[in-house]
């Protein structure tokens, strides 16, 4: 528990700095766009209807979807700029996060600013004209100060929303306080989840209070009060950003972007690769908790330099193949096709699979003499299958079922945690499992062999982006990992992170996994 808290605190400066960076940038842009737009909209009814309509429409898009939509949009834009100007636009990380959050911040600011400006008493506006103010003086000296309380209420709403929604930026590869939440959810590290939520909430509350001070200062005409609030915001933002300045040093060493999808094994492997690159003197940037489909496209587009994926996933999702090839043939065909179609280099297989398999309690399997799927088929009518929520509808299951003629007494679906528990309490006899899951070893389970090779293989493979294909630093640091990680070693590392007692961080698990591996070869 204490160790988890220490680990969380160690990441805080970096996560907080990035979170403040994207939130503050998005809010500043939101203000810059909304305020002039509000002035125009308050004067012109037609503009008002159109602008508020569009902003309202954007607001109805769920924030996660808005973030996700910017990725393909920027990817297309990148292809366009590549063709016309020869430069690409980064489609992952800072840019999509800030763009989506800016769009999200616009509506509350815009709507309140329009309401505030239109709510100024027409008699007071006439008085401003009557005492001889120019339209600009009237706006700045009368309309803006009188609308300010309503405008500031909108700015405060936008700030709280933006700081909250910025946690979602993690899913498009932008570091934020969401890194705690996403990784914590996947590794069932509730200390991280609570820590991330708490930090984001605290940030939102502090920002809101400082803005409240500015609001109160403006309403009561107390210059010192709103200056104090503004100074607090500026100084606070500045302080939060300091870790980024030191990180952005002038180091000449190459920087590699390592991607990870959203589960423990991916975090551990990314840590392992990162540690090896840093040991070789390179700098490393991590993009964690990426969506499965996003990761490969990001690599192909050069937004990532390296990540680990699984042969079966790439075979069906990227190459669109439905046939099942023997393990070695599939790997060589995959290697050829990824290079040919996407310019992506397959550095090699790490040595273990993370496939859908069937597992049983070891004593029960021994007692019934079941070691393979073929053995299982004979006993299946007396046994009950427990599956995770999607297994029974996946192609792997139909392939196994038809290849071995599996016909169970009953089939039940569970949340993975409860599925393992049901096997322990013997409510079910056989379960679907991921072959590198740490609980296979911890719960003393056996994985049934697949003598017919009916299920597609899911070898963990290291992929390099097109621009890093011949990067000597990267290749020499990571090549020793090829074929070096056994499924037993990976299970143990996963278990360290996933278990409830004496939980380790992915970094600690990676360090344990990495001991004894061959050192980096000189390039």
């Amino acid at each position, binding site marked *: 528990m204490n160790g988890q808290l220490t680990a969380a605190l160690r990441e805080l400066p970096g996560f907080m700095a990035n979170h403040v960076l994207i939130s503050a940038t998005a809010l500043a842009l939101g203000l810059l766009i909304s305020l002039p737009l509000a002035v125009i909209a308050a004067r012109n009814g037609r503009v008002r209807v159109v602008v508020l309509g569009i902003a309202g429409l954007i607001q109805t898009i769920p924030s996660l979807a808005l973030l996700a939509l910017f990725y393909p949009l920027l990817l297309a834009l990148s292809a366009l700029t590549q063709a016309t100007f020869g430069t690409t636009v980064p489609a992952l990380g800072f840019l999509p996060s800030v763009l989506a959050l800016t769009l999200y911040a616009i509506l509350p600011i815009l709507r309140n600013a329009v309401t505030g400006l239109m709510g100024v008493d027409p*008699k*007071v506006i*006439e*008085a*401003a*004209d*009557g*005492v*001889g*103010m*120019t339209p600009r*003086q009237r706006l700045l000296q*009368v309309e803006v*100060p*009188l609308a300010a309380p309503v405008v500031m209420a909108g700015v405060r709403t936008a700030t709280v929303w933006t700081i909250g929604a910025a946690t979602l930026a993690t899913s498009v590869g932008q570091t934020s306080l969401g890194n705690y939440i996403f990784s914590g959810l996947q590794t069932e590290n509730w200390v991280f989840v609570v820590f991330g939520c708490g930090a984001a909430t605290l940030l939102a509350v502090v920002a809101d209070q400082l803005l409240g001070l500015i609001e109160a200062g403006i309403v009561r*005409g107390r210059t010192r009060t709103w200056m104090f609030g503004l100074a607090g915001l500026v100084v606070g933002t500045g302080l939060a950003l300091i870790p980024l300045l030191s990180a952005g040093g002038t180091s000449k060493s190459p920087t590699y972007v390592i991607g990870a999808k959203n589960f423990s094994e991916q975090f551990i492997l990314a840590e392992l690769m990162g540690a090896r690159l840093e040991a070789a003197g390179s700098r490393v940037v991590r993009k964690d908790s990426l969506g499965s489909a996003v990761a490969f496209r990001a690599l192909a587009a050069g937004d990532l330099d390296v990540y680990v994926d699984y042969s079966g996933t790439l075979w069906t999702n990227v190459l669109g193949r439905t046939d099942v090839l023997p393990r070695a043939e599939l790997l060589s065909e995959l290697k050829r096709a990824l290079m040919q179609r996407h310019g992506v280099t397959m550095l090699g297989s790490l040595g273990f699979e993370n496939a859908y398999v069937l597992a049983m309690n070891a004593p029960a399997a021994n007692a019934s003499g079941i070691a393979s799927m073929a053995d299982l088929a004979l006993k299946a009518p007396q046994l009950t299958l427990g599956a995770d929520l999607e297994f029974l509808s996946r192609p792997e299951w139909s392939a196994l079922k038809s290849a071995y003629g599996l016909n169970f007494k009953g089939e039940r679906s569970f949340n993975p945690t409860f599925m393992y528990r049901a096997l322990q309490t013997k409510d079910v006899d056989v379960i679907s499992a991921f072959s590198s899951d740490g609980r296979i070893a911890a719960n003393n389970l056996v994985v049934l062999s697949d003598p017919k090779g009916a299920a597609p293989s899911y070898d963990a493979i290291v992929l390099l982006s097109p621009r890093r294909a011949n990067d000597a630093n990267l290749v020499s640091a990571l090549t020793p990992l090829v074929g070096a990680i056994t499924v037993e070693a990976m299970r143990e590392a996963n278990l360290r992170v996933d278990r409830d007692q004496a939980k380790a961080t992915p970094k600690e698990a990676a360090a344990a996994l990495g001991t004894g591996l061959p050192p980096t070869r000189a390039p």
Partner: protein
Amino acid sequence: MAVDAVSLAVPAGAFIALVGTSGSGKTTVMKTINRLIDPDRGVVRIGGVAVGALDAPTLRRQIGYVFQGGGLFPHMSVGQNIGVTPRLLGWPPDKIASRVGELLELVELPQDVAGRFPAQLSGGQQQRVAVARALAARPNIVLMDEPFGALDPVTRDILGTAYKGMHSALGLTTVMVTHDIQEAILLADRIVIMRAGRVLADVTPQELLQPQVDPDVAALIAVPLRHARHIQDMIAAGVRTAPS
């Protein structure tokens, strides 16, 4: 059309009252003077210069304006309200401050009111501030839109009389819009009666008190005359029947 074929000449130093029911066009006519409204056709001249040719904000800074209900800026202190036009004209701050003090004295408000906000003042005090603001930049011309309409009769009388004094002492030219004929008779030296965008009569108060040919003008003046006679009769009766 709010106003049609209105022709008025206002000599310097005059106190003109524009009188009529709502919708008669009296306010529209007054607002063309400082270009709060620009007429579709026709011309307004001040000292021979057509106001349409002048920059509207510059013109308005030279003309005092007392708004209906005061029209004070709620987010500015009384001092800032009074000093707003001098500030727009670029007066130095110390000169503005001493001018604000002078004006508070002129409208008979204590000096510490300068730091208060309009919402903290009574209606009568707000109207005094509005008069002070109109006079701040030493205009020669003052326009007043129902200046004392929302006040109780006593305050109204006090303020009206006080303003009349300032008008004479400062040598102002004043155009006042009011729907109250009695107020017009008491304050103005010339009364312009409007109906449906046209001038119905342009007379002195004395002339207005003579028997009128136009039935509308006659009806307008009949009410205050009847009230005055009624009160006089009551006073006379009271004197006769009072116990000795």
